[in-house]
């Protein structure tokens, strides 16, 4: 009995010591540092591999990343009003407009970026700087389906019965639905035709899922066609998933991913150094290579053959959307989508 109690006490002491050691053994914070919100997964891995060392060698600034999706960044910054939990945002256009609307960004000073001249026109404004482009179109499994041509094919046989859909929660989902609506007479601010058309085929649609589950659903053959962006397709192809990207006849959709300084950030200076490093030609070029598959925004980067365009200027021909018009309508669309697809 005494034996048992003795060992138990020893065990507790050891456990306490371990916990203490874990708490103390933290690296000290370096002098120059910036904390950036970062999309988890591909983005974070790519930034860790290329941006962290580049920023360190060019400016002696340490980059700390906090993995958050765009929507979570806005929520966190808003909840922590005035005391932002990170210095820099990375956002898609929808959350970007919300961030501007809710006053979450510091005013952006483009002249503080050395590389700003290398960006095509319109890539920097009073709120932030564009760091990557995203091109949205159709992804399908060529082993199981014939090649689709247009957005409307998604709602026709044989594709519709293999279609995997997501709602308006994501930027790529929203722009794709808008494009489908346009083919049936709708517009950027009117997705009613989409709801009319989808209702006719709803029972055939293979999956209406959470955005996070789409890669797994596709991989396991639950759906064989979906709307998606080139980066996702390239990443999944790199992992041996049977998926191919198609630019719809009416044109692929392009949108930009932007970075912003969080309101109240005390590391503004380092945030600009960070942005400047991200848009620099060597970093942009490295981010373009597999397995990262970013679409660069720096003119000095020689575009890879796999990209859906030969030059950055071609992007002007892609379909663009005005998110300041879309955002106010999104809540109602989401509600409508819930009601239409719920059985």
């Amino acid at each position, binding site marked *: *009995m005494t034996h048992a109690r003795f*060992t138990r006490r020893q065990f507790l002491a050891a456990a306490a010591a371990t916990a203490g050691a*874990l708490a103390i053994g933290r690296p000290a914070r370096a002098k120059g540092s910036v904390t950036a919100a970062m*999309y988890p997964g591909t983005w974070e891995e790519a930034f860790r591999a290329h941006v962290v060392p580049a920023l360190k060698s060019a400016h002696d600034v340490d980059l700390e990343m906090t*993995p958050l999706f765009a929507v979570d960044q806005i929520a966190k910054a808003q*909840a922590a009003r005035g005391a932002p939990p990170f210095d820099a945002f990375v956002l898609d256009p929808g959350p970007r407009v919300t961030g501007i609307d809710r006053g979450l960004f510091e005013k952006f000073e483009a002249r503080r970026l050395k590389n700003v001249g290398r960006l095509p026109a319109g890539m920097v404004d009073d709120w932030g700087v564009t760091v990557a482009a995203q091109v949205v179109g159709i992804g399908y499994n060529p082993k199981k389906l014939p090649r689709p041509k247009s957005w409307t094919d998604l709602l026709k046989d044989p594709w519709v019965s293999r279609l995997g859909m997501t709602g308006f929660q994501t930027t790529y989902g929203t722009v794709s639905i808008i494009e489908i609506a346009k083919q049936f007479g709708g517009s950027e601010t009117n997705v009613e035709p989409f709801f009319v058309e989808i209702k006719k085929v709803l029972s055939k649609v293979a999956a209406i899922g959470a955005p996070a589950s789409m890669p797994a659903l596709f991989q396991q053959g639950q759906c064989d066609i979906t709307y998606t962006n080139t980066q*996702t397709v390239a990443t999944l192809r790199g992992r041996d998933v049977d998926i191919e990207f198609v630019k719809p006849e009416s044109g692929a959709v392009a949108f930009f991913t932007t970075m912003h300084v969080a309101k109240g950030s005390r590391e503004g200076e380092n945030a600009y150094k960070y942005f400047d490093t991200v848009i620099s030609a060597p970093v942009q070029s490295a981010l373009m290579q597999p397995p990262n598959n970013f679409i660069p925004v720096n003119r000095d980067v020689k575009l890879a053959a796999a990209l859906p365009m030969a030059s950055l200027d071609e992007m002007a021909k892609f379909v663009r959307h005005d998110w300041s018009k879309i955002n106010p309508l999104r809540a109602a669309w989401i509600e409508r989508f819930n009601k239409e697809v719920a059985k």
Partner: protein
Amino acid sequence: MRAKDLSYSVVIGLLAGLGFLILIGPVVIVLLTSFTQGRSIRFPPSGLSLQWYQLLFDSVRSSQIHRAALNSLEVAVVAMVGATVLATLASVALARRSGTWVRALDTFFMSPLILPMLAFGLAALMYFTFMGFRPSLALIAIGHVVVVAPLALRTTSASMSQLDPALLESSASLGASWLYTFRRVTLPVIAPGIAAGAFLAFVGSLDNVPISLFLAGPRSDMLPIRMWGMMESTLDVRVAAVSGVLIATVLVLMLVMERVVGLTRRLRD
């Protein structure tokens, strides 16, 4: 009557078999997937290999996962200890009492379980920020204690209700102090409930996404959030391998404990 007993065995046997199948099936799929030779998570796996476990244990290429795993373990241990101690004390206080206020208090203690964690995480972040705290591991641990304490409370209370009040009273009437009674009478009866509760609290914290999402800062990266990103964007097989490691660890711990318990029993005899 024997025919009735046969029907009992068949019905209970079939249902329990189904239960075991449901418990084990998905885990087998995860384990098989983790041994794939392929480059992404897929079932059935293409060929068998240990490459993803090798990658998972690679201290350079998986360093971020290791850091997140250490953070998660640290928080889970703190949350488990905090929740178990608080919940055990409370369950002793509430046991075998009735009355409106006891029931109200019990409902209050259970309420974090039914408040959606997403909403609690958001509210907790607003509150902590207002108080002047920055997101950190400590805040995550506090948030986790709140949401896992009901798990510990429920299992401990369930065991508590088996305690015969006559035992406590006779112990007290024999002059035993409260603490002595607790250690020698109460604790042995409720120990399985406490252990079950502590385990639920530990894994509840280890696997929590919503609270960690809101209360995590740049240096408090948590494992489930990291795994979420890996699964969503790259179908990384290491996500499955993490489960394989966890299962193996618990299996080994249970075997060791069985040895130790068996050993102490023999020493005692």
